[in-house]
């Protein structure tokens, strides 16, 4: 029944390539997280404090990002924008789609974080003589950061996993590289098995690092 030969050699020979592609994966995930956090903060604040068209735009962004598949968003940035003459490179496509998606999810996290902090705190800070800026940066933001820290790590893991869709638009991150190598040697199972292990290790490293950081950051 199991007369299948697992060919290690071609995979091991291209392991450096795979690891290097893993760095690309990590790079695009981190970059999209940074962009996503910035846009997500803006979206969350816009949904809470603004009225009119700007608020609608922010709401539409969040709902679209949360209610359509990530793959659809990727195709939209890839093929959809190509229709209006905007041809992006695979790297930009993946980065744009990931950032769009992350921003939508993070906006909801940030909104929850801001709403979890009672208004009285800012009033107390103001009555102690702090300026609005001081009370935000010293009282509100640290608390919000603590609340959203865990969702933020989760989103980081999601960003790494989602970047694997890049293989469908020809982006040579870990999955794309794997597919290219696999289709060259026809050892599909071996390559994807090793890639799965690499992804698992990357995710574990991220989670471990975030836990380490949390014990350093949140010590009273």
């Amino acid at each position: 029944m199991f007369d299948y030969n697992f060919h290690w050699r071609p995979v091991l020979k291209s392991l450096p390539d795979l690891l290097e592609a893993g760095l690309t994966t990590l790079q695009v995930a981190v970059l999209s997280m940074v962009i996503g956090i910035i846009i997500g903060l803006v979206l969350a604040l816009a949904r809470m404090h603004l009225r009119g068209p700007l608020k609608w735009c922010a709401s539409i962004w969040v709902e679209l990002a949360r209610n359509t598949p990530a793959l659809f968003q990727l195709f939209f940035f890839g093929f959809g924008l190509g229709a209006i003459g905007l041809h992006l490179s695979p790297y930009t496509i993946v980065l744009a789609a990931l950032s769009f998606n992350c921003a939508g999810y993070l906006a909801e996290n940030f909104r929850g974080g801001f709403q979890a902090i009672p208004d009285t705190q800012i009033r107390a800070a103001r009555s102690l003589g702090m300026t609005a800026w001081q009370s935000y940066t010293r009282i509100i933001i640290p608390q919000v950061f603590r609340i959203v820290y865990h969702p933020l790590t989760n989103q980081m893991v999601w960003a790494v996993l989602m970047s694997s869709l890049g293989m469908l638009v020809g982006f040579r991150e870990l999955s794309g590289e794997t597919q290219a190598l696999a289709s060259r040697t026809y050892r599909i199972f071996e390559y994807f098995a090793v890639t799965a292990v690499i992804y698992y290790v990357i995710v574990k490293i991220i989670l471990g690092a975030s836990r380490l950081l949390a014990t350093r950051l949140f010590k009273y």
Partner: protein
Amino acid sequence: MEPTISFFSGFQLNDLWFLAEAAWKTLLISVLSISIGTVLGIFFGWILYEGRWTAALTLGPLLDVFRSVPLIIQLVLFYNFAPIIGLNLDPFLSGVVILSIYCAALVANVARGGMEAVGNTMRRAARSLGMSYWQDLRYVVLPIGGRAVFPSWVGVALGVMKDSALVSVLGYIELLKASQILITRTQEPLLILTLAGAFYFALSYPISRYAATLEKRWAS
């Protein structure tokens, strides 16, 4: 009269029907794998809750693998692995298998959270009233715990529904694959992707809204 030949026929009403049919297929594979995944996931969650450290050593890491490896890699891996052990699965069945296990891995954690939410005193009270173990599970844990985690279960289910778009890499013609086929023929990516996105949005948005209101009502 000179007959004119055009290689690309535009978008026709027929194609809308094709898309609707594909949306139905998306719904079919999602509902099937979410149902199987939920039943499995509740079972796993029960093991995780009751088994404590034995489960934490065996089942926990196993389910963790399905959460830390990209779904697309899992799909390709399983699709290529099935023939090795002598199974000949079509894309639909492979998709259902992997999506179900993936869903089960996510639901297991949700289910365990629900069981932990019930609290030991309540369960002891039920047992001391003369309920059997199963009665306690059915009449105490299920209503109280289920209510606590229902919104997050909806979130997981919606996530799996959106992730079912990935089965298109195996060649199952669901909504996103169908839209790609139409794009190839009509060369109108923007229109067709917008339609596909609208289908996904129509499937997902009402449910996520409903879950949000439910969460708000139950929280108060």
